[in-house]
């Protein structure tokens, strides 16, 4: 046997509304049930008789909950709930994006033909930062004093620590392993 509070909870549980709607509906149903209860008490009914009377006059909580959910619009409720979570979702997505950018993947825009024809100007490269030991012929992005450069590995030292990189129009550069940002795993050229 339900108490009135449990009866109301059951309706709200089935209706499963967005918080603001749930507050309004709950308050409205609670007031109505309270009025019915008072009417029952005026008729000298016992607490359990009142509950039976209210349940009979008000209807099945499962059926009622489902009808309220439908009347408020299930899709609207879904959107309202999502909208409430949106700031948190965006914050989580931002943190995740920054974490990925810092540790695993980063995109770079190539503005000149220093690594042409493999990487023409107006290309984008996606760099796998976890792969910092490139082989000969790999396209790599490396750090210099003021920014980043893209180049093609022409030779690696036997101990794998120094890497020699070629860029058109410049002498081959010897890089320390720590200068390597990562190996390019995806190239996209948007040059006309």
């Amino acid at each position, binding site marked *: 046997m339900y108490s009135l509070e449990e009866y109301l909870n059951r*309706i709200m549980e089935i209706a499963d509304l967005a918080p603001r709607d749930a507050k*309004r*509906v709950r*308050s*409205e*149903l609670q*007031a*109505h049930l*309270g*009025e*019915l209860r*008072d009417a029952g008490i005026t008729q000298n009914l016992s607490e359990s008789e009142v509950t039976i009377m209210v349940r*009979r*006059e*008000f*209807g099945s909580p499962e059926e*009622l909950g489902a*009808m*309220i959910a*439908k*009347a*408020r*619009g299930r899709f609207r409720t879904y959107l309202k709930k999502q909208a409430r979570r949106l700031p948190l979702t965006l914050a989580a997505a931002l943190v995740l994006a920054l974490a990925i950018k810092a540790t695993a993947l980063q995109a770079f825009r190539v503005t000149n033909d220093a690594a042409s024809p493999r990487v023409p100007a107006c290309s984008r490269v996606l760099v796998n930062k976890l792969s910092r030991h490139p082989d000969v012929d790999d396209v790599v992005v490396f750090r210099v004093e003021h920014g980043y450069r893209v180049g093609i590995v022409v030779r690696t030292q036997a101990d794998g620590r120094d890497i020699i990189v070629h860029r058109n129009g410049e002498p081959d550069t010897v890089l320390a392993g720590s200068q390597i940002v990562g190996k390019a795993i995806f190239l996209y050229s948007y040059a006309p």
Partner: protein
Amino acid sequence: MDSRAQYRRGCVRTLVLELLSRRPMYGYEIASTLARQSEQVFSLGQGTLYPLLYSLERKGLIRAGKEERDPESGRKRLYYELTPKGRRSLQEDLDTWSQIVRGMTLVLRSAHVQP
């Protein structure tokens, strides 16, 4: 929902609009007025009044107005009122109802008259 329940629900919809066309009312007041004035014909399933009110509200036929606190019981009461669209819809419902009653009466009466 079977067809009888649907028919009943259609009637309650018109009656709720009619009650709200007289003055703003809150849920319990609508339910109890409906039960009293219909001599308990529309007394059971008071809870189903709320899905009906929410659906009328979504359709723009009624609006939830001010929430007032009853000075005696201290309960909050949310008053509903009819919108102009609701008033037009009520008029259409009443016209339809008049036609149905007329049609039903004519047919039922003829059944008694014929040998």
